[in-house]
């Protein structure tokens, strides 16, 4: 530890620069034997390299080939897969569906989650019980949620009964192109909202109470306090929730797979479901990998954008 710092000072002071090898040797094999730290991380690194980094590189390579599950011989085809994706109406449709699905889902669950978190942050009796109960949808297994909602959105199901009671014309949810996506949005938001709520609650509880007291003394009413204290203080939490919600919704295809199967007529086929169908049902591994890379780029772009926003917020 100490030798590393001395080396740093030496370089900064303009003394003859150590050779890289000497520096590495000092910082790794100093008296506190820091190289042991690396030894501790080796096991997980091996697994991550084998099952994360290698598949990632493999995906990038596959996306440049015409690989298929049924044929042995693969050929390098350059960016042909990407060029074809840009012209593929099924892929463009999946992108559009994903945009609508993700946009609606995260808006719904972020707004609802915030409202619930603010409600559950008030001083009311049985607050803990409500928090527990509200979290239950997130506890339902991911494969059970679509089965449940498929039943609720049945033509004679509970949702249509509720609509009838409200005087609205019932909808054939899962068999109409718009209804299928809307049903997916509701089902996903139902399971996502409690998770958003919990993150918001943590953010709300980290806001110092003095701020509210000061605002109250300055004569701010409850709505004003929400707008001028809660919302600005919650901005970092907001970004965290957004990244969380977007990545979870973009990647998830269990709900679409079990609930609608991407139908009717691929109207509810999202990007991740498209990757699955192309790769595992259509056996076109190269083409599916190209679509998967596009999906990764979307996730990375959103994550980096929000990280940057977060950093500028803090800095």
């Amino acid at each position, binding site marked *: 530890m100490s030798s590393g710092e001395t080396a740093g000072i030496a370089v900064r002071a303009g003394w003859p620069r150590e050779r890289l090898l000497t*520096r590495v040797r000092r*910082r790794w094999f100093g008296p*506190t*034997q820091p*190289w*042991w*730290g*690396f*030894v*501790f*991380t080796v*096991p997980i690194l091996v*697994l*991550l390299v084998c*099952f*994360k980094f*290698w*598949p*990632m590189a*493999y*995906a990038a390579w*596959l996306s440049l080939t015409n690989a298929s599950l049924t044929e042995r011989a693969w050929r390098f085809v350059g960016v042909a897969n990407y060029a074809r994706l840009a012209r593929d109406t099924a892929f463009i449709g999946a992108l559009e569906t994903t945009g609508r699905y993700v946009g609606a889902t995260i808006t719904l669950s972020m707004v609802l989650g915030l409202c*619930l978190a603010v*409600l*559950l942050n*008030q001083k*009311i*009796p049985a607050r803990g019980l*409500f928090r527990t*109960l509200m*979290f239950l*949808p997130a506890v339902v*297994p*991911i*494969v*059970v949620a679509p*089965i*449940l909602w498929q*039943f609720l959105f049945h033509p004679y*199901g509970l949702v249509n009964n509720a609509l009838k009671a409200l005087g609205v014309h019932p909808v054939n949810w899962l068999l109409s192109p718009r209804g299928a996506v809307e049903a997916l949005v509701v089902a996903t938001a139902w399971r996502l909202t409690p998770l958003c709520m*919990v993150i918001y609650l943590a953010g709300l509880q980290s806001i110092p109470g003095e701020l509210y*007291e000061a605002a109250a003394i300055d004569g701010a009413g409850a709505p004003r306090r929400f707008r001028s204290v809660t919302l600005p203080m919650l901005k970092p939490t907001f970004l965290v*929730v957004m990244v*969380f919600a977007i*990545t*979870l919704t973009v*990647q998830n295809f*269990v709900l679409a797979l*079990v609930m609608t199967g991407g139908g009717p007529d691929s109207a509810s086929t999202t990007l*991740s479901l498209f*990757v*699955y169908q192309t*790769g*595992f049902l259509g056996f076109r*591994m190269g083409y599916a*990998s190209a679509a*998967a890379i596009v999906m*990764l780029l979307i*996730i990375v772009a959103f*994550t980096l954008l929000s990280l940057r926003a977060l950093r500028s917020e803090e800095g």
Partner: protein
Amino acid sequence: MSLASAVHPLRRLGLRRAPNRARVRAHAVTIGLLLLLTAVTVVFLMPIFWMVSTSLKTNRHVFDLPIQWFPRPALWSNYPAAYATVRFTRYFVNSAIVTGCVTVLNVMLSALAGYGLAKYRFLGRHVLLVLILATLMLPLEVVMVPLYLTVQRLGWLNSYQGMIVPVAANALGVLMMRQYFLSLPDDLIAAARIDGAGHVSTFLRIAVPLAWPALLTVAILIFQSTWDDFVWPFLIISNTSKATVPLAVQTFQSAETSNFPMLMAVSSIASVPLTLLFFVFQRQIITGVATTGMRH
């Protein structure tokens, strides 16, 4: 701040002497909030209630109008029937094997890496941490095609190791363990080292026993997400003898799409383990979700 704390007791005094009307208003607000919350909770929990309610009906009466909220008579016999038809025992055992192995492996690997990254200052540790954290942006769904091909080449399709090893390493555990070990005083470790303990025995005898709350949190979160995982087993398991609970549920669903009471009974049975886990370890699960903001 000093102003606020100076005024605060006065304000409280003032409130205590407040006219009745203000107190009544405060009560009214509380009752209104409670009513609102109750309504929202009822709507949110309706799907779960409806699942249990439907699971106690006969198939003929599922869509009866007016709606039968509490079926009479309640057909509790649907549950043993559902359990027997799906032959759940096999799948519970498979899920337990896979989830148990993944959890143990993951906790061990995370604790090791978290300790190494928090307590040693070696060249390149920041790069290593960033590399590990970057895998959080890489969901299984993105690499499912190459991962499948890799596992296929290893000959691990339809096997326990195929379900366990590829998902055993998770950056989330490393992040949480590192965070915990950073808060552990360096002096403790230095003292053990001066007393002549080796690196490994310092880790095992000093760091691990102190870190059990963090280890427990990681274990619970990993257990939950692994038990719940559907995609990876779905991709590599085609043999029912190795199937996990979520796979069994999905298989039953695709075979019996319109036998709703059975379907709901199967869904309820499949939901029991995670629900129990949640009620026992509620604090760990909620703080885990809240602090990491990510579950996968």
